[in-house]
């Protein structure tokens, strides 16, 4: 793997393996369903040339987000049959053929990835305009047994399936503009920020994982921008860095079967050789339309199959925090003052519902049972009842999930102390915060 100083250069063309690209004459920013107002096509490239061969999706007005099955035999993509119709997830043989509709979403489904064990994950849209939200669903490859694994609010989108079997998502933050990368288990448990290095207004997406575990993605300056910088986060690094020479103009990145990257820059597609100091070679540029996305049509190593330990029949999950005072938000790494309770609030249509308080022990630990599959956030309460620290984002637990955390927005670089949390030595915990007693609604 190259280090962060790898330079991206740009001389032209060379051969490559089988590739399919998404070609569009016009690319728009904003809503995922409005990306290609004049349509788009999935086109197969002629290996070793800059020429395109057949259009794989002649029946579609617009297509996007192609993915290849692990055995290389099938293509999954988001498609719009006619202009204005609903985007759905479709699948075709990689060699071409009749498309099979996988999803039947009411508002629209985009950005799908293959999972092992014959499942897929995809992004399901809700609402329109300013009320647009999205969640991530998992279903069988057939489309059956679709179920949500994110529980907003916000706009969750599938980025990619990581080799560990986890899903890399992107989601809007509290300001509704910034988009951060998160990791979640395919059963919806264990949601966590990939890194706590999100800058205000930064839009992170189009993310892929390289063979060594590096996450590479496009960081757009605003939600209105269609291109941005190419950044990567190396394994173990605290923060992502911009790849030198790739500060702007990038729309997408894909991994190729030979370990190279394919990037979309200024309407053209380039392969990037990471072993040769980021040397770029032109793969596609055409007056017929911009190459905005690419995918290698080849078998590739499946990601790990994730084994869920949830108990879906349970309607609650549990939160165990080892030290609520541990935080990265202040220089000392610890919240000033004495935290005595943690308050759990659930998001409702009209505001927030106070589910209740649980005691915080002197070692900072707390242990509470909360409702499953609803957006919740936490507030730390001081001795006088004051809110010492309030969580700004929303989270959730799944049924039967035991969600552990080391602190409240704690440093990801800090391993927990080795001690028995005092909250677990009590016999009246986990505090049940699932009942209706004492609930209050905040506007």
């Amino acid at each position, binding site marked *: 793997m190259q280090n962060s100083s790898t330079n991206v250069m740009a001389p032209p063309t060379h051969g490559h393996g089988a590739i399919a690209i998404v070609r569009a004459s016009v690319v728009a920013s904003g809503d995922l369903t409005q990306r290609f107002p004049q349509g788009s096509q999935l086109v197969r490239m002629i290996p070793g040339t800059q020429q395109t061969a057949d259009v794989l999706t002649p029946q579609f007005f617009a297509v996007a987000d192609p993915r290849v099955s692990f055995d290389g035999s099938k293509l999954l993509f988001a498609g719009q049959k006619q202009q204005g119709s609903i985007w759905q997830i479709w699948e075709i043989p990689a060699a071409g053929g009749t498309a099979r509709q996988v999803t039947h979403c009411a508002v629209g489904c985009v950005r799908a990835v293959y999972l092992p064990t014959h499942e897929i994950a995809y992004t399901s849209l809700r609402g329109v305009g300013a009320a647009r939200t999205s969640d991530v669903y998992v279903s069988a490859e057939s489309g059956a047994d679709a179920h949500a694994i994110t529980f907003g609010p916000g706009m969750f989108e599938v980025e990619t399936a990581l080799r*560990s*079997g986890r899903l890399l998502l992107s989601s809007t933050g509290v300001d509704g503009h910034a988009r951060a990368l998160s990791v979640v*288990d395919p059963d919806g448990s*264990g949601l*966590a920020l990939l890194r706590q290095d999100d800058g205000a207004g930064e839009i992170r997406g189009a993310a892929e994982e390289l063979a060594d*575990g590096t996450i590479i993605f496009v960081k757009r300056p605003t939600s209105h921008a269609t291109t941005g910088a190419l950044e990567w986060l190396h*394994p*173990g*690094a*605290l923060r992502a860095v911009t790849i030198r020479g790739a500060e702007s103009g990038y729309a997408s990145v894909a991994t190729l079967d030979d370990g190279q990257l394919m990037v979309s820059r200024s309407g053209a597609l380039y392969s990037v050789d990471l072993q040769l100091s980021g040397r770029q070679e032109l793969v596609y540029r055409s007056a017929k339309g911009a190459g905005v996305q690419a995918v290698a049509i080849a078998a590739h190593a499946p990601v*790990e*199959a*994730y*084994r869920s*330990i949830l108990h879906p029949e349970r309607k609650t999950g*549990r939160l*165990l925090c*080892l030290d609520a005072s541990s935080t990265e938000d202040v220089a000392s790494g610890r919240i000033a003052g004495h935290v005595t309770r943690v308050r759990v609030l659930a998001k409702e249509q009209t505001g927030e519902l106070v589910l209740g308080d649980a005691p915080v022990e002197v070692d900072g630990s707390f*242990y509470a049972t909360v409702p499953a599959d609803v957006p919740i956030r936490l507030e730390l309460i001081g001795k006088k009842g004051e809110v010492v620290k309030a969580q700004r984002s929303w989270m959730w637990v799944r049924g039967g999930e*035991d*969600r*552990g*955390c*080391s602190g409240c927005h704690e440093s*990801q*670089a*800090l*391993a*927990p*102390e*080795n*001690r*028995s*949390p005092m*909250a*677990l*030595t009590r*016999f009246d915990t*986990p505090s049940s915060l699932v009942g209706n007693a004492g609930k209050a609604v905040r506007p």
Partner: protein
Amino acid sequence: MSGPRESSSNKLTHREEWAIGVAVLAMIFAVVLMFAQQPILASAAGRGPGTKVERPEAEVRYLSPVALQLSHDGRWLYVVCEDSDVMLVVDTRAARVLRRVKVGTRPKGIAISPDGKTLYVSDETSDAVTEIDAQSFAVRRTLKVGWGPVGLTTDRTGDVLYVANTLGNDVSVIDLRTGTERKRLEAGHYPEYVALSNDGTRVYVANLLARLAPPDRPPVSELTVIDCAKQVIAARVDVPGVIQMRHIAELPSSAGGYVLVPFMRPKNLNPLVQIPQGGYLTHGMAVIRPASSSADGPGSYQVTEVLLDNIDHYYADGFGVAETPEGRWALVTASGADVVSVVDATKLRRLLMRSAAQRLALANRLDSANEIIAERVATGRNPTDVIASADGQFAYIANRMDDTISVMDMTRRQMVSTIDLGGPKELTQRRRGERLFYDASYCYQGQMACATCHPHEGLSDGLAWSLETPQLGRDVVENRTLYSIAGTEPFKWNGKNPDLETQDGPRTAMYIFRSQGFNSKEVEDLVGYIFSLHLRQNPHLAGDGTLTDAQARGRAMFFRDKSNSGAIIPPMQRCYTCHSPLTHFTSRVQLNVGTATKYDTISAFDVPQLEGVAMKPPYLHNGEALELEDIWTSYNPEDKHGLTSDMNKAQLNDLIEYLKTL
């Protein structure tokens, strides 16, 4: 004085066999009544260890290099191979094996005399050290040492050899002029590796396991310091929060003179649900600034713990460590990650110049490795020892699981070649399983391998772990040894895993590794390997199996059916009923022996097998009993754990002496 010796402890008299038979029948009846609701019994009873797993292919002998030394001129690399009982002589220029020198059984460590003319190889299972002429490679003599010798070093004169005896928890001080043991010094818990300080005044001893302590406290390990002039223990330096300290290196004084010892830093008191959040098992090294004088006490040693892991990527099971001669680099092998980390000693020193509080915080920092690691370089499988050449040009790394040596160019800090030591090329089932056992890549983020918690080929790490759901913080259980567990199903303290395939397959994947885990074929291989693990020697039992007087008296206590008052002991209160010698000294059921605490959600626990029991303290399901005697004197007030309240001190001592022979 010992009296007439009894017959082998493994042979039972007719009366004992009859008594066992009656007792077992009684126990079976009682147990069936007690556990009629437990389907686990039926499934466990029908499964034998040999039904699914093939016997290991004993005829295939791998080399398994574990220890390295270089001749002073760097021409010869001496490689100790634990599975073939040989020391190989490798020509470093030709990169090939020149000689095979037969040594004792299960060699583990190697030392070279100050003049470079003599080599000493520790033979763990022989309780001996083989002395070899470094020019002719002839074996000169065999030196008797303590139990389970591993690490060894001479002093600066070359007249004294210090040998760490793992099973004896001590260090043999050998007078090399006479070849006799001058004394034994008490070390910490399971001393493995030793090193002579650069100034020759001290010998450092790294202890693999933490001191025995209550199970609800973090472990504290010990670096034992020996004063070479007086040949006494000079200091017992606490290394808090860590276990599994391994090899030792010392940077030159120009680079700070720090003593480096790889370790594992567990979070066993946190619930297992923390694994997905990371930081549950961390790996790094103790960086110890020695006292200025060998006579100074432990308070004069400054201990800093530095993690070598990254935020979401771990370098499990640090093992070997070496410094380049000028002190520019330190090399630490991660035996579970197949990586050697190259530490920039200058940056390390800078890190250590922080305030005391900041240095203390390094113990849990997962970002400091980014500051001090210059390279992560891939090695062969399961890298163990590492050594740098005297000119600082090359480093050699022993890859235990593929019988090779990785050669690293320290100028470029890249691997330049691999020396094939000539081990068998076929992979037996046992070897495949062994490879899996040491491989941390199967765990989420590479946090741990099987060997991480079962070091030294299946030993228990001696810690109690908060493993259980559904009630977090309850049912904290002591880790158990993997020695001689074939035929002792079911597994886990609650007996819920009917076989090892269940334990090491889906359950390990789901709850411990938090990953896809091993596939079914891999599980089969792994189980085959684990079932092949045995305590290699029992120093408490005479070679011919005869018992001492005390051991014989203890056996009588174990098999007694009458109390001291002459009353008949109910079958369920006899030792041998539940710890039946017919079934590995376990009855393979779960029984309530009154040891449950208020933090346990169950009261009946799996009856542990007693083979090798002396080697696996602490005891009871939660590790509360630090020594065998505590089981009866502190945790058996109502005689639920066998009738022991009538035993006097001498009888308990005898009983312990017998149990140690198992």
